[in-house]
Protein backbone atom coordinates (compact mmCIF):
# COMPACT_ATOMS: atom_id res chain seq x y z
CA UNK A 1 0.00 0.00 0.00
CA UNK A 2 1.22 3.46 -0.85
CA UNK A 3 2.25 5.67 2.05
CA UNK A 4 2.36 9.42 2.44
CA UNK A 5 5.64 10.03 4.34
CA UNK A 6 5.49 13.83 4.13
CA UNK A 7 5.06 16.37 6.93
CA UNK A 8 1.87 18.42 7.24
CA UNK A 9 1.94 21.54 5.08
CA UNK A 10 4.81 20.20 2.99
CA UNK A 11 4.68 20.34 -0.81
CA UNK A 12 4.21 17.03 -2.57
CA UNK A 13 4.68 17.07 -6.33
CA UNK A 14 3.23 14.06 -8.03
CA UNK A 15 3.49 12.95 -11.64
CA UNK A 16 0.90 10.45 -12.81
CA UNK A 17 2.91 8.21 -15.09
CA UNK A 18 1.49 5.56 -17.40
CA UNK A 19 4.17 4.53 -19.86
CA UNK A 20 2.43 6.53 -22.60
CA UNK A 21 3.85 9.36 -24.69
CA UNK A 22 2.50 12.30 -22.66
CA UNK A 23 3.50 11.28 -19.16
CA UNK A 24 6.91 9.99 -20.31
CA UNK A 25 7.58 13.32 -21.96
CA UNK A 26 6.75 15.08 -18.66
CA UNK A 27 9.00 12.67 -16.80
CA UNK A 28 12.02 13.45 -18.99
CA UNK A 29 11.32 17.14 -19.35
CA UNK A 30 10.82 17.86 -15.62
CA UNK A 31 12.62 14.90 -14.06
CA UNK A 32 13.91 16.64 -10.95
CA UNK A 33 10.65 18.35 -10.10
CA UNK A 34 8.67 15.36 -8.81
CA UNK A 35 8.60 13.93 -5.30
CA UNK A 36 6.51 10.95 -6.36
CA UNK A 37 5.87 9.09 -9.58
CA UNK A 38 2.57 7.27 -9.41
CA UNK A 39 1.22 4.62 -11.74
CA UNK A 40 -2.52 3.97 -11.46
CA UNK A 41 -3.65 0.38 -11.69
CA UNK A 42 -7.39 0.59 -12.45
CA UNK A 43 -7.51 -2.94 -13.72
CA UNK A 44 -6.83 -1.80 -17.27
CA UNK A 45 -6.13 -4.78 -19.58
CA UNK A 46 -2.80 -3.28 -20.68
CA UNK A 47 -1.40 -2.46 -17.23
CA UNK A 48 1.40 -5.02 -17.57
CA UNK A 49 2.41 -3.55 -20.94
CA UNK A 50 2.39 -0.07 -19.44
CA UNK A 51 4.41 -1.12 -16.40
CA UNK A 52 6.94 -2.92 -18.59
CA UNK A 53 7.81 0.38 -20.27
CA UNK A 54 8.43 1.99 -16.88
CA UNK A 55 10.38 -1.03 -15.64
CA UNK A 56 12.53 -1.13 -18.79
CA UNK A 57 13.34 2.52 -18.21
CA UNK A 58 14.15 1.71 -14.55
CA UNK A 59 11.74 4.36 -13.38
CA UNK A 60 11.11 4.22 -9.64
CA UNK A 61 7.34 4.52 -9.32
CA UNK A 62 4.67 3.61 -6.81
CA UNK A 63 1.30 2.07 -7.67
CA UNK A 64 -2.10 3.43 -6.72
CA UNK A 65 -4.60 0.60 -6.94
CA UNK A 66 -8.08 1.64 -7.96
CA UNK A 67 -10.09 -1.45 -8.74
CA UNK A 68 -13.85 -1.86 -9.00
CA UNK A 69 -14.62 0.99 -11.38
CA UNK A 70 -17.11 0.07 -14.11
CA UNK A 71 -15.58 -0.19 -17.57
CA UNK A 72 -17.32 0.06 -20.92
CA UNK A 73 -16.52 -2.14 -23.91
CA UNK A 74 -14.67 0.73 -25.57
CA UNK A 75 -12.32 0.95 -22.59
CA UNK A 76 -13.84 4.05 -20.99
CA UNK A 77 -13.74 3.74 -17.21
CA UNK A 78 -16.52 5.57 -15.42
CA UNK A 79 -15.33 8.04 -12.81
CA UNK A 80 -11.67 7.14 -13.18
CA UNK A 81 -10.12 10.60 -13.23
CA UNK A 82 -12.16 12.14 -10.42
CA UNK A 83 -11.49 9.03 -8.32
CA UNK A 84 -7.73 9.24 -8.95
CA UNK A 85 -7.57 12.87 -7.83
CA UNK A 86 -9.81 12.16 -4.82
CA UNK A 87 -7.66 9.22 -3.70
CA UNK A 88 -4.48 11.28 -4.02
CA UNK A 89 -6.09 14.13 -2.08
CA UNK A 90 -7.00 11.72 0.74
CA UNK A 91 -3.61 10.01 0.67
CA UNK A 92 -1.73 13.29 1.01
CA UNK A 93 -4.25 14.93 3.31
CA UNK A 94 -3.29 18.41 4.59
CA UNK A 95 -0.31 18.54 2.22
CA UNK A 96 0.19 21.14 -0.48
CA UNK A 97 -0.40 18.75 -3.33
CA UNK A 98 0.66 19.46 -6.90
CA UNK A 99 -0.43 16.90 -9.46
CA UNK A 100 1.15 16.92 -12.93
CA UNK A 101 -0.96 15.42 -15.68
CA UNK A 102 -0.10 14.65 -19.29
CA UNK A 103 -3.25 16.16 -20.77
CA UNK A 104 -2.52 17.43 -24.28
CA UNK A 105 -4.25 19.82 -26.68
CA UNK A 106 -5.94 16.97 -28.53
CA UNK A 107 -7.50 15.19 -25.55
CA UNK A 108 -11.25 15.21 -26.14
CA UNK A 109 -12.66 12.91 -23.46
CA UNK A 110 -14.97 15.03 -21.31
CA UNK A 111 -13.33 13.90 -18.08
CA UNK A 112 -9.81 14.57 -19.34
CA UNK A 113 -9.74 18.20 -20.41
CA UNK A 114 -8.18 21.27 -18.75
CA UNK A 115 -11.64 22.68 -18.06
CA UNK A 116 -12.65 19.48 -16.27
CA UNK A 117 -9.53 19.45 -14.12
CA UNK A 118 -9.91 23.13 -13.22
CA UNK A 119 -13.35 22.36 -11.82
CA UNK A 120 -11.92 19.36 -9.99
CA UNK A 121 -9.18 21.57 -8.53
CA UNK A 122 -11.84 24.03 -7.36
CA UNK A 123 -14.06 21.49 -5.64
CA UNK A 124 -11.07 19.76 -4.03
CA UNK A 125 -9.88 23.07 -2.61
CA UNK A 126 -13.39 23.79 -1.35
CA UNK A 127 -13.67 20.32 0.18
CA UNK A 128 -10.23 19.85 1.75
CA UNK A 129 -7.64 21.97 3.51
CA UNK A 130 -4.00 21.83 2.46
CA UNK A 131 -4.36 23.07 -1.11
CA UNK A 132 -4.17 21.28 -4.42
CA UNK A 133 -2.97 22.35 -7.87
CA UNK A 134 -3.48 20.35 -11.00
CA UNK A 135 -0.84 21.27 -13.54
CA UNK A 136 -1.09 20.36 -17.21
CA UNK A 137 2.12 21.53 -18.90
CA UNK A 138 1.14 19.94 -22.23
CA UNK A 139 -2.34 21.40 -22.56
CA UNK A 140 -1.28 23.55 -25.51
CA UNK A 141 0.96 20.98 -27.21
CA UNK A 142 -0.30 18.59 -29.83
CA UNK A 143 0.42 14.90 -29.66
CA UNK A 144 2.74 14.85 -32.65
CA UNK A 145 5.02 17.56 -31.24
CA UNK A 146 5.10 15.78 -27.89
CA UNK A 147 6.07 12.56 -29.67
CA UNK A 148 8.85 14.27 -31.64
CA UNK A 149 10.31 15.84 -28.48
CA UNK A 150 10.04 12.60 -26.50
CA UNK A 151 11.79 10.64 -29.22
CA UNK A 152 14.87 12.83 -28.71
CA UNK A 153 15.02 11.98 -24.99
CA UNK A 154 13.87 8.38 -24.84
CA UNK A 155 16.37 5.49 -25.16
CA UNK A 156 16.13 4.12 -28.71
CA UNK A 157 15.08 0.60 -27.75
CA UNK A 158 12.02 1.82 -25.80
CA UNK A 159 8.57 2.36 -27.33
CA UNK A 160 5.89 4.09 -25.24
CA UNK A 161 2.75 2.00 -24.77
CA UNK A 162 -0.39 3.66 -26.16
CA UNK A 163 -2.56 0.71 -27.15
CA UNK A 164 -5.77 -0.54 -25.47
CA UNK A 165 -5.17 -4.20 -26.31
CA UNK A 166 -2.64 -6.31 -24.39
CA UNK A 167 -0.04 -8.17 -26.41
CA UNK A 168 3.54 -8.23 -27.60
CA UNK A 169 3.04 -5.35 -30.00
CA UNK A 170 0.59 -2.47 -30.25
CA UNK A 171 -2.37 -3.51 -32.40
CA UNK A 172 -2.80 -0.47 -34.65
CA UNK A 173 -6.59 -0.91 -34.72
CA UNK A 174 -7.92 0.09 -31.28
CA UNK A 175 -9.25 3.56 -30.45
CA UNK A 176 -5.93 4.70 -28.94
CA UNK A 177 -3.88 3.37 -31.86
CA UNK A 178 -6.20 5.04 -34.34
CA UNK A 179 -5.87 8.32 -32.45
CA UNK A 180 -2.12 7.83 -32.49
CA UNK A 181 -2.24 7.40 -36.27
CA UNK A 182 -4.51 10.42 -36.72
CA UNK A 183 -2.15 12.66 -34.78
CA UNK A 184 0.84 11.16 -36.61
CA UNK A 185 2.53 9.99 -33.45
CA UNK A 186 2.11 6.26 -34.18
CA UNK A 187 4.69 6.23 -36.92
CA UNK A 188 7.35 8.06 -34.87
CA UNK A 189 8.11 4.69 -33.32
Amino acid at each position, binding site marked *: MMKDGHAEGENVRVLLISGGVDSLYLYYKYQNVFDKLIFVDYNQPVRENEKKVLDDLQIDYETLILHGLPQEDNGYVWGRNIEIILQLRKLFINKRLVIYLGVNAEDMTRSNTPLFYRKVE*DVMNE*SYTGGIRIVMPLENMNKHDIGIELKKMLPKKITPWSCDVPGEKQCGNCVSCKQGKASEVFNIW
Partner: protein
Amino acid sequence: MVNILLLSGGMDSTLIYYIEKNIDEYVFFNYGQKQLKQERNAIKKLNVKYKEIKINKLNYTKNGFIQGRNLTFLIELRELYIDKNIVVFIGSNKDDVFPDNNTKFMKKVESILNASYIKNIKIITPLSNTTKKTISKSLSQVENVSPYWCYSGTDTPCGICKSCKELKKIGEFKKWIQ
Protein backbone atom coordinates in the same frame (compact mmCIF):
# COMPACT_ATOMS: atom_id res chain seq x y z
CA MET B 1 -34.79 8.38 -12.52
CA VAL B 2 -34.40 8.17 -8.76
CA ASN B 3 -35.06 11.12 -6.45
CA ILE B 4 -32.82 10.84 -3.41
CA LEU B 5 -32.89 12.90 -0.23
CA LEU B 6 -29.71 13.01 1.81
CA LEU B 7 -30.83 12.88 5.43
CA SER B 8 -28.60 13.92 8.32
CA GLY B 9 -31.09 14.32 11.12
CA GLY B 10 -30.44 18.06 11.04
CA MET B 11 -32.94 20.85 10.51
CA ASP B 12 -32.30 21.43 6.81
CA SER B 13 -32.74 17.90 5.55
CA THR B 14 -35.63 17.31 7.95
CA LEU B 15 -37.48 20.31 6.56
CA ILE B 16 -36.85 19.10 3.00
CA TYR B 17 -38.29 15.75 4.08
CA TYR B 18 -41.57 17.51 4.87
CA ILE B 19 -41.54 19.74 1.79
CA GLU B 20 -40.49 17.36 -0.99
CA LYS B 21 -43.12 14.74 -1.66
CA ASN B 22 -41.56 12.94 -4.63
CA ILE B 23 -38.57 11.33 -2.97
CA ASP B 24 -37.90 7.69 -3.89
CA GLU B 25 -34.96 6.93 -1.61
CA TYR B 26 -33.71 8.35 1.68
CA VAL B 27 -30.01 7.99 2.41
CA PHE B 28 -27.98 8.60 5.56
CA PHE B 29 -24.17 8.48 5.70
CA ASN B 30 -22.23 7.01 8.58
CA TYR B 31 -18.80 8.63 8.28
CA GLY B 32 -17.61 8.09 11.83
CA GLN B 33 -19.25 11.25 13.14
CA LYS B 34 -19.39 11.77 16.91
CA GLN B 35 -23.10 12.43 16.74
CA LEU B 36 -23.97 9.26 14.82
CA LYS B 37 -26.38 7.88 17.45
CA GLN B 38 -28.22 11.18 17.86
CA GLU B 39 -28.53 11.69 14.10
CA ARG B 40 -29.91 8.18 13.66
CA ASN B 41 -32.43 8.79 16.43
CA ALA B 42 -33.58 12.02 14.82
CA ILE B 43 -34.14 10.24 11.49
CA LYS B 44 -35.91 7.28 13.11
CA LYS B 45 -38.48 9.71 14.51
CA LEU B 46 -39.44 10.57 10.93
CA ASN B 47 -40.65 7.00 10.53
CA VAL B 48 -39.16 6.72 7.09
CA LYS B 49 -37.41 3.78 5.49
CA TYR B 50 -33.83 4.85 4.78
CA LYS B 51 -30.52 3.39 3.66
CA GLU B 52 -27.51 3.86 5.91
CA ILE B 53 -24.24 3.88 4.03
CA LYS B 54 -21.02 3.41 5.97
CA ILE B 55 -17.93 5.04 4.51
CA ASN B 56 -14.39 5.55 5.80
CA LYS B 57 -14.04 8.02 8.65
CA LEU B 58 -13.74 11.60 7.44
CA ASN B 59 -11.28 14.10 8.90
CA TYR B 60 -12.40 17.08 10.96
CA THR B 61 -10.53 20.38 11.09
CA LYS B 62 -10.39 22.49 14.25
CA ASN B 63 -13.30 24.71 13.22
CA GLY B 64 -15.62 21.75 12.69
CA PHE B 65 -15.18 21.53 8.93
CA ILE B 66 -15.42 17.94 7.74
CA GLN B 67 -12.96 17.36 4.94
CA GLY B 68 -14.43 16.08 1.72
CA ARG B 69 -17.86 15.40 3.21
CA ASN B 70 -20.26 16.59 0.53
CA LEU B 71 -17.97 15.62 -2.34
CA THR B 72 -17.56 12.12 -0.92
CA PHE B 73 -21.31 11.75 -0.35
CA LEU B 74 -22.11 12.77 -3.91
CA ILE B 75 -19.52 10.49 -5.50
CA GLU B 76 -20.71 7.61 -3.29
CA LEU B 77 -24.31 8.22 -4.38
CA ARG B 78 -23.30 8.45 -8.02
CA GLU B 79 -21.55 5.07 -7.76
CA LEU B 80 -24.27 3.47 -5.67
CA TYR B 81 -26.87 4.27 -8.34
CA ILE B 82 -24.39 3.81 -11.17
CA ASP B 83 -26.89 2.74 -13.85
CA LYS B 84 -29.57 5.31 -13.05
CA ASN B 85 -30.19 8.98 -13.61
CA ILE B 86 -30.44 10.52 -10.15
CA VAL B 87 -31.66 13.72 -8.55
CA VAL B 88 -30.07 14.41 -5.18
CA PHE B 89 -31.66 16.80 -2.70
CA ILE B 90 -29.23 18.34 -0.21
CA GLY B 91 -29.91 20.62 2.73
CA SER B 92 -27.70 23.59 2.10
CA ASN B 93 -29.09 26.91 3.41
CA LYS B 94 -28.47 30.62 2.88
CA ASP B 95 -26.37 30.95 6.05
CA ASP B 96 -24.04 28.02 5.37
CA VAL B 97 -20.44 29.19 5.58
CA PHE B 98 -18.48 26.10 4.63
CA PRO B 99 -17.13 26.29 1.07
CA ASP B 100 -18.48 22.89 0.07
CA ASN B 101 -22.06 23.64 0.97
CA ASN B 102 -23.50 26.12 -1.49
CA THR B 103 -25.20 26.02 -4.87
CA LYS B 104 -22.09 27.06 -6.80
CA PHE B 105 -20.12 24.16 -5.36
CA MET B 106 -22.93 21.73 -6.08
CA LYS B 107 -23.15 22.89 -9.72
CA LYS B 108 -19.43 22.24 -10.21
CA VAL B 109 -19.71 18.77 -8.70
CA GLU B 110 -22.73 18.09 -10.89
CA SER B 111 -20.74 19.07 -13.97
CA ILE B 112 -17.72 16.95 -12.96
CA LEU B 113 -19.85 13.87 -12.29
CA ASN B 114 -21.83 14.28 -15.49
CA ALA B 115 -18.56 14.41 -17.44
CA SER B 116 -17.25 11.34 -15.61
CA TYR B 117 -20.19 8.95 -15.67
CA ILE B 118 -22.68 7.90 -18.33
CA LYS B 119 -25.86 8.51 -16.35
CA ASN B 120 -26.86 11.98 -15.22
CA ILE B 121 -26.93 13.53 -11.80
CA LYS B 122 -28.80 16.68 -10.79
CA ILE B 123 -28.14 18.24 -7.40
CA ILE B 124 -30.91 20.33 -5.89
CA THR B 125 -30.57 22.60 -2.87
CA PRO B 126 -34.19 23.60 -2.14
CA LEU B 127 -33.22 25.75 0.87
CA SER B 128 -30.29 27.62 -0.64
CA ASN B 129 -32.19 30.92 -0.43
CA THR B 130 -33.71 30.23 2.97
CA THR B 131 -32.12 31.44 6.21
CA LYS B 132 -31.51 29.13 9.15
CA LYS B 133 -33.93 31.18 11.21
CA THR B 134 -36.74 30.61 8.69
CA ILE B 135 -35.88 26.90 8.49
CA SER B 136 -35.96 26.57 12.26
CA LYS B 137 -39.24 28.48 12.55
CA SER B 138 -40.88 26.44 9.78
CA LEU B 139 -39.77 23.16 11.29
CA SER B 140 -40.95 24.09 14.75
CA GLN B 141 -44.48 24.18 13.39
CA VAL B 142 -44.30 20.45 12.66
CA GLU B 143 -45.47 18.23 15.53
CA ASN B 144 -43.16 15.72 17.20
CA VAL B 145 -40.09 16.65 15.22
CA SER B 146 -36.73 16.73 16.97
CA PRO B 147 -33.76 17.40 14.71
CA TYR B 148 -30.19 17.05 15.95
CA TRP B 149 -27.57 19.59 14.91
CA CYS B 150 -24.87 19.51 17.58
CA TYR B 151 -21.29 18.41 16.74
CA SER B 152 -20.53 17.19 20.26
CA GLY B 153 -22.51 13.95 20.20
CA THR B 154 -24.15 14.63 23.57
CA ASP B 155 -27.84 13.73 23.84
CA THR B 156 -28.65 17.29 24.84
CA PRO B 157 -27.01 19.74 22.43
CA CYS B 158 -23.89 21.21 24.06
CA GLY B 159 -24.57 24.88 23.39
CA ILE B 160 -20.91 25.61 22.73
CA CYS B 161 -20.06 23.99 19.38
CA LYS B 162 -20.15 26.03 16.19
CA SER B 163 -23.55 24.67 15.20
CA CYS B 164 -25.13 25.38 18.62
CA LYS B 165 -23.61 28.86 18.67
CA GLU B 166 -25.11 29.65 15.28
CA LEU B 167 -28.55 28.67 16.54
CA LYS B 168 -28.08 30.76 19.65
CA LYS B 169 -27.02 33.74 17.56
CA ILE B 170 -30.31 33.70 15.67
CA GLY B 171 -32.34 33.06 18.82
CA GLU B 172 -33.44 29.56 17.80
CA PHE B 173 -31.54 27.40 20.30
CA LYS B 174 -33.65 27.38 23.43
CA LYS B 175 -36.94 26.33 21.92
CA TRP B 176 -35.47 23.07 20.63
CA ILE B 177 -33.97 21.90 23.91
CA GLN B 178 -37.02 22.59 26.05
